[in-house]
Every structure is written in structure tokens, then in C-alpha cells.
């Protein structure tokens, strides 16, 4: 008779495909993908990333957070019957039958060196450090390449206009995967330009945090030292009591 599993064992069993790699016998639907020209049969519900692993590759590059936040797994591919070259994140894209793919493990993208505290909050900062932004021909290829669906061309145009706020807003969700820079015919490195712009906006364009400054003054004056001296010397029981008596601030 099969041993009855406890709750933790049942959870582990149900999560097996994710935690230990996919077992062929658990797979119902298959597709064929071409990894750098070589055909592999892989389970249909995998992402490009997990499909490459299923095929037997072990990642050292082109794999990072595995959740769409880090930009390590930029991948280009074509789908059967479609002339378009697609750019996407391997960890966020499901495999499709007939996909031809290759990963882009690195983007050669030199950056400028600057100190934002020494720069003026004017449009010139972009031309000073990244003069090639002026070469933008508004072709929108960068926007089409962006796996985050950002309006990349729009934020570059915002930079050219000196509209820091719009550039910061439009580029904010950038994960710096490099696909825009690889595709750009004007050879702009959009995500470096955006990084500079956002920092300028964050430092110069936002309100000064007055209550934060006040709190730091209070800390420097030693206002909380007595409280913390007391708290750090309390027994566990006394702390538990204070904790239970806390009053939660209203919504």
C-alpha cells in the first residue's frame, strides 16, 4: 500500500516540477523548439528559460531572477510563419511550436561617468554625457523591442526636450535588459540615458522630504536614545506586554 503523505509532503510533491526539474512522465503536451538551430522536444507549458533547462542546458549566463525583474535572460526569436524578429524575456515567455531562438547574454554598452550633484538640472546633461541621443530618428524600434512594453522612443524624446518628469515616469519600469540598445539604428544606449535622467529627476525634481529631515535632526539631538536604552534592556515578558498594548494607527 502507498504511504499516505502528510501535508508538507503533499505540498512538496505538487511542486516537484518547479523545484527539481521536469520529469518526462508527467508531461502531456509537447512542442518542438529550435535552440540556436538545434531541435528539441519540450513540454508545452514551459517558459523559454525552463525549456532550455529541460533540454539539458545549465545556465551560467542568461538566467537571473527567473521572475522578470533582472533582464538577464533577454532572448530573440522567430515564430514559424512570421517574418518578425521578437524580443522578450526567456523567463516570461512560453515556448511555442516551431520557435527559433537564441539568448543574448550580454550587451556591450559603455556608460558615461558623472556626479549628479555637480550637474545642472537642465536638458544639456543628456547631450553632455550621451550626445548620441540627438541621433534618434524616431523609428520606434526600441519601443517594439522592449519586453516591458515601455514607450522607449517617447522617453528618449522626452530627454531631448528636457522633460525629466516624463522621462522618469515612462522609463521607470525598465529592467535594463539591453534589447533597445541592441536594436537601435542610431546606436543610442537608451537605458543608460534613462538611468541618468531618473536620478536627476529623483534628486532635483522631487520635493525635499521635510519630515525626514526633521526626524534626522531629532535623532542627532538624541531624542530617541532614552526610549531605545529602555527598550533594549527590557525582558522578553516586558516587551511582550508593550507589544500587546500597541495601538495601531487608523487607516
Amino acid at each position, binding site marked *: 500500500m502507498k504511504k499516505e503523505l*502528510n501535508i508538507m509532503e503533499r505540498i512538496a510533491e505538487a511542486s516537484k516540477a518547479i523545484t527539481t526539474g521536469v520529469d518526462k512522465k508527467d508531461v502531456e503536451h509537447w512542442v518542438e523548439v529550435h535552440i540556436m538551430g538545434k531541435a528539441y522536444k519540450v513540454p508545452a507549458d514551459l517558459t523559454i528559460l525552463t525549456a532550455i533547462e529541460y533540454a539539458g542546458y545549465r545556465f551560467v549566463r542568461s538566467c537571473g531572477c527567473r521572475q522578470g*525583474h533582472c533582464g538577464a535572460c533577454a532572448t530573440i526569436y522567430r515564430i514559424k510563419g512570421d517574418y518578425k524578429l521578437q524580443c522578450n524575456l526567456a523567463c516570461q515567455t512560453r515556448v511555442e511550436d516551431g520557435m527559433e531562438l537564441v539568448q543574448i547574454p550580454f550587451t556591450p554598452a559603455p556608460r558615461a561617468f558623472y556626479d*549628479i550633484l555637480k550637474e545642472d538640472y537642465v536638458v544639456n546633461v543628456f547631450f553632455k554625457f550621451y550626445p548620441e541621443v540627438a541621433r534618434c530618428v524616431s523609428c520606434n524600434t526600441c519601443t517594439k523591442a522592449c519586453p516591458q512594453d515601455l514607450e522607449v522612443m517617447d522617453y528618449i524624446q522626452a530627454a531631448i526636450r528636457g522633460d525629466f518628469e516624463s522621462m522618469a515616469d515612462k522609463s*521607470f519600469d525598465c529592467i535594463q535588459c539591453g534589447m533597445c540598445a541592441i536594436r537601435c539604428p542610431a546606436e543610442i544606449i537608451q537605458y543608460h540615458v534613462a538611468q541618468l535622467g531618473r536620478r536627476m529627476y529623483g534628486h532635483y525634481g522631487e520635493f525635499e522630504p521635510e*519630515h525626514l529631515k526633521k526626524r534626522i535632526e531629532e535623532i542627532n539631538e538624541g531624542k*530617541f536614545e532614552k526610549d531605545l536604552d529602555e*527598550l533594549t534592556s527590557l525582558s522578553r515578558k516586558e516587551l511582550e506586554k508593550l507589544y500587546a498594548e500597541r495601538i495601531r494607527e487608523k487607516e
Partner: protein
Amino acid sequence: MAEIKYIGGYPEHFRKYIDIVSRTRMKRKDYTPPAMNKEEQQEALKNHPDYAPGGKRKISIGQNKGDIAPIEVADLLEAYPVITPDEIDLKKADYSVDLMVIGGGLAGTTACIWANKKGIDKNKILLVNKLRHGDANSIMAEGGTQVADRKEDSLRAHYLDIMGGGHFANKPDVVRALVSDAPLIMEWLHELGVIFDREENGDFAEKFAGGLSRKRLHYCRDYTGLEEFRVIRDDFRNRQISYIEHSPVIELLTDGEKVTGAVLYNLETGEYSIVEAKTTIMATGGFGRLHIRGFPTTNHYGATADGIILSYRVGAKLRDTDTVQYHPTGAAYPVQIVGYLLTEKLRSAGAQPVNKDGEAFVYPLEPRDVEASAIIRECYVENKSITTPTGLRGVWLDTPMIEVKNGEGYIKKNFPGMNRLYERNNIDMAKDPVLIFPTLHYQNGGVETDPWGHTNIDGLWVAGEIMGGVHGKNRLMGNSTLDTMVFGRRTGISTAEYIKSGKKQGKLTLEHLPKYIKMIKEAGIKTNRKAPILLPEYRGKAALARMIDIF
């Protein structure tokens, strides 16, 4: 088997359950289940992976012998090194620096910057990365950073929240350091140009999170860690501090007592190199990719406990190794995103956990361990869960409630990362709820330190998730990004002072390895295990079974 038909990203047969959630939504709008009292919390915790039977054992060698740890961690502590001293030539170092920082996430990068700010030359600092600089859990932190800066808030309130959340097991002096430095870190981030969400009057937007008595959570949409990190890395690059990528540390070096350097391994060429360093900061993060108890994880590909293992081998003391944090709301469907983090801020904004019958069954902002336990109980004890096509159980997180409470368009504007994640899977989280189940998230314990991140071993500091004591037995949301930067800064300052006090470079040896191996043998441990493992193994089983090693 027939193909499953999908409607709005979900299998057709899910629709009747989704309808129940929609129908009950307005009834639940003004109802929140009461927070549990201490006894109810204890009862719920019986279903937590930390408290459910099994999964842990005693560490049988070394300075923490007898302490309890997850089996996966204890196994790696009791594993052989990946190198032997006779195959490594230590006569000449390839890099000779004042400060070596291992791990380029928020903690390590912050440490380099502050050491540089305190006078350590950019060429005398070396940041070592296993993968790319920035391949870290830091950039995946969605929720926010806790800083007690409003007049309604105080360091006292922050301190109490942390201690209670950590079940009073925290180390008081490091908690004090954390709450006291938080506003300084916030000011530093503002100066660097990090863009935090703001209220209309220009104040920082601040929210509640699980276990908080004050609104204290500062955030950057749902990309907080990413925004903080990329700005800090930009400053690091502008300072032109040296760094190496794709070269993990596989062993620390000592002069017999203090840490004096490390052996690096080039992941691509297989070549080793030697670093000699007067000071070392270990900032390698946590262990999510060990999949403790077989759970999926929110963690980065490289989160394999390397730093803990290597620090333990040179004698660093650990603490609170017995608890692991499971984030209450990991994605449970679709299969491509199982285990992904769904930020706690969704619940701060009004999303409720809801069971199969459309009932809100738990106060949405319990401390994380309690919230996770209640969800596991609802799925496996109460059996009021939904089962996915791949056999996972989950309950709903009623995300459309966020828009009922905050207005249409709120999700897209405030949770672009989450929204994008589901949109890619054809699910509209503003219209339909999402399926959740707890996921392995954070290493609560770690290497014990003083308030400056210094360990019991001379020359070795730690910062970030690898550190133990700050969060006791359970971390609250928004305190991990904070602790990486607070202790990154503190270790940077502390190592700079140590270097400037005129300390000399110690000799390079691997003397500790034969001693460690002897300990394993004497304890009667029969194993071929080797550590650090560096990366998890996800290759397909069929491919692995036929692999041969010929060059």
C-alpha cells in the same frame, strides 16, 4: 486528453469559482476578519512548515553543533569542500585589496560605496559576484522599505513592531541599529536620486504592511528594490570601484585565525584565482534555491547559501537557523509563475485572501508566518481551496477589491510589475482574482554579528540576508531592503576604520579545511556531498540521465 479551454487566462472550469469571488465581493468590501490573538496565532502556526513535524534536524558539527536547522541547510554545513588545499597555489595573489566584498546585491554594493566614501581607494576595493553585479534578491524586492519618519511614528514603534514580528528572539543591539539608521539611509537614497512614490503634497507615500502599527512603508511602485539597487549601482559605477562577475568565491582563506582572502572560481573557464584582502564582507544573500521542504521560491537563481557555508567553515557563529520565511502570497497559477512573489502591498491596498466559498478567512495583514499558516490551513485542513491543473492547491487573492476600494486603474498605476506578470499570462488581475499559495522567501537567521556587522571572526563582516539576529524568527515586510543598506553602510564604514587603523595583510592558507574535514569524519557523517553548490539543478531528468562527461 482534450485541450483545456481557457477564458481570461483561466481554465474554463475555474470560472464558476471565480464567479463566487465576484458575487461575494461587495459583501466583503466593508468586512475584514479580526486579527488573531496570541493563542489563535499559535494554533494557526501549527500548519507552518517551520512548526509542522519533520523538515529539520540538529547540526552535528562545528560552533553551532546541536542547533536546529532545515535539513537542506544542515546537509550543506556537513559537506566537503569543493577544493583540496594541495590543488590550489596560494603563493601569489591575483588581486591584492584592502576590502573584498562578496556578493553584489544591495548590501554588498552599499558596503563598497561607504568604504570608498570613508577613504578606501576604489582600486583597493573588490566586489566579487557569482553571476552579474545585481543578480540578487534585492532587485526583486517589490514592496518597500520601512523608515519611521512621520511625526505619528517613532523609532520606538518601529523597534516594537520588529521585536514582536520576530517573536522577541531578535538581537536587541542590531535592531536598535536598524531603526536608528533607517532615516539616514532614506536621506542617502533621496540624495542619490531614488524616486519614491509621493503624496500630492510631496510627502513620501507610506503604507501599512503585515505586523506594522504605523504606516511606515516607503515604496517605488512595485519595483522598490530594483529602483534602489540600480541607483546605488549607478553610483558604484561612477566611483569606478573594481568588480568581477561570474566568479563566485568557493572558499575563504585564513591565516589560521582571521579571514585574509578567498579563492574565486571563473564559472566560464573553470580557472581559479586568489584574492588577498585585509577585510572581507560576506553579502551573499539567502538560501531560497535550496527549496526548503520542497517549496517553490521567490528567490534569485543564485540563492544557494554559499556564504553561510563558507563562513561556518572558518568558524563564524550562526543564530536562529531554525526558522524560514514563507511569503504568504506566492503565485499558484499558472504553472510558469508558481512561487513568484505577489507583494504584500497588494493586501495593504485592499486585496483579501478568499477561500473557495468566497469567504474572507484571515485578517490580511497578520505577520507573514501567521498569514502563511492560515492559508496552508485553509488549503489542506479546511479543504476550501482550488486545485490547479498541475495539482497545486491555492486560495484566491481578491485583487479586483483593490480597484473597488481605490478606484479604477489603481492596479495598473501602482502595481505595474504584478500587472505585467499576469497580463503576459492573459489574466486581468483588476477583473479576476489570482490564485495564491505560500512560497519560500527569506532566511530569517544567519551569521551572528555586532551592530557593525562584524562576526566573531577577525577580518570577517557580514551584511544583508546572510546576517542573523535582526529579524529574530520572522521578518516583517520592508525591513530586508532596509537591513541590506543599513548594514551595508555600517560594514563599509567599519571595515574602512579597521583598514585605516593600520592592519597588515595576513598570510593565505587553507588550514581550516583539513580541520573541517576531520570534524565531518569524526562525527561519523557518511556523505559525498560537496558545498558550496553555487547553482541549483533544474536540468530535465531525461537529459541528465543520458549525460556523459568526456571533456
